[in-house]
């Protein structure tokens, strides 16, 4: 017979402690783990609704300014290289795939694949930012294609092009900030996966972060044609 310690419930006779995702229980104000899971997931969806409304202001600015200054936006858009936009779109789509696969791995308890997919998602997010900063932000910074009073680009063709660059930096900047936060979350989950936090009974963070990552992906799905392709 085993002896149970008050300090370490469930650990008996030197047997290895079960992973956290096996022993965790629901909070006392929920009926059961399902109840807690559903509430948390709906909370994530409500948060995503506010995220969409945050970006909708930028989409609104785009629509209004494009309507008022079509020539400025046409020329501003022609100064972007769609190839970097295309590459970054592919990178983000693939990271969304690995994020969805990570949720699946957690649900099925495949710890090795879970860690791999969390890492790949994190790295894809980093690749997105590196491409963005090295090949887009930095050259535009040097060329003076900056928003507001920092706009010093000499070869503009329409006097309202400063509005285009204001939109470009605000929209891609807010989006890149979201990607950066996502990278942090995936790095954190990668570490926690090694500590046994996620498994079939406990994967809300993996799923919630994946939902967030997908909404960031959807925002980019719209930003890419709006900024790079509509001319």
């Amino acid at each position, binding site marked *: 017979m085993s002896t149970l310690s008050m300090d370490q419930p469930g650990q008996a006779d030197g047997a290895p402690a079960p992973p956290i995702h096996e022993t965790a229980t629901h909070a006392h104000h929920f009926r059961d783990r399902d109840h807690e899971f559903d509430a948390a997931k709906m909370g994530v969806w409500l948060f995503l609704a506010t995220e969409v409304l945050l970006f909708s202001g930028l*989409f609104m600015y785009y629509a*209004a300014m494009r309507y008022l200054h079509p020539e400025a936006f046409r020329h501003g858009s022609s100064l972007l290289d*769609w190839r970097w936009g295309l590459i970054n779109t592919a990178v983000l789509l693939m990271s969304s795939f690995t994020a969805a696969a990570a949720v699946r791995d957690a649900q099925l308890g495949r710890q090795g694949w879970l860690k791999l997919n969390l890492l790949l998602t994190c790295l894809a997010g980093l690749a997105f930012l590196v491409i963005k900063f090295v090949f887009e932000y930095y050259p535009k910074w040097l060329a003076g294609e900056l928003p507001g009073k920092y706009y010093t680009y000499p070869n503009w063709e329409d006097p309202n092009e400063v509005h285009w660059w204001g939109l470009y930096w605000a929209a891609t900047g807010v989006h890149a900030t979201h990607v950066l936060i996502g990278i942090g979350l995936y790095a954190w989950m990668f570490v926690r996966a090694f500590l046994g936090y996620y498994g079939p009974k406990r994967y809300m963070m993996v799923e919630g972060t994946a939902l967030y990552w997908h909404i960031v992906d959807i925002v980019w799905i719209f930003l890419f044609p709006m900024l790079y392709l509509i*001319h």
Partner: protein
Amino acid sequence: MAHHAHPPHGHAGHGIESPGAAEAHSHAHTVVPMRVLVLVLMALLGFTFLTVLAASIEQWVSATFDVVIPQWVNVAVALSIAVVKSLLVAAFFMALRYDNPTNALVAFFTVITLAFFLGFTMIDLGNRDAVYAKKAQYIADGGTGYHAAGTTQAQRAREIASQESIDLIARDQPLPKHLAKFCVLEIERFHAQAKELPEYLRTFQARREHLGKNYHDDGHGAHGGHGALARPDHATPNAAVIRSGLTLPELGGKGHSDEHHAPADHHNPADHHTPAPGGDTPAQPAD
């Protein structure tokens, strides 16, 4: 919310497709098959290439056959593909297809809210002309003036450009590129209509011929890095321009002491550096 109808305990031993027996009955725990995820990724990448292809084909057709494709075609194709891609992501990657329908409802109302926001703002913008015609007498200097009664955007822009050109030529200043381009176009327009050039265009033409083609090369060349001249002051946020906007004229005057300066002084950052001809002290808008 059918799964809440289940008893809270004693539901072990349900299907094997769900992770963890304790949660086997819930909609929210469907494992999306790997085959679906891979197919959706392929479709998303395919649509991405399709949207780039569509934009390229459109530009090619427009250039090769010399036809003007209306911009709404471009916008409609690009955004339709984006909507399809988003639906794929939401349905399969975000698993709304399999999820508790409450979450789909949240997503649906988010989209509805977004549609109201975008739709009503665009209705407003699209009907400004009808409103401005009635309010024209209230538009004070400093607003865009694009929609003032009887003035098209092009006419207004031409007025601004010619006034700026007159000011700069009168003070023997180099013209920024956009104004030089404007003057050349105006000269061609007058020649095409076989009209006599106005004074400032004659001056510009003569000076341009005298100085050569680099006349307008401001900001880099002989005229030396005068950043303010490289940008149009009526659209540059950092120009010290008082913008009273769509306010009553008597409200627009607040904040600067000199009431007699000409409107051109508002528009011209160069006025802060160069005295006006004729010995008059140029008006300085107070900050």
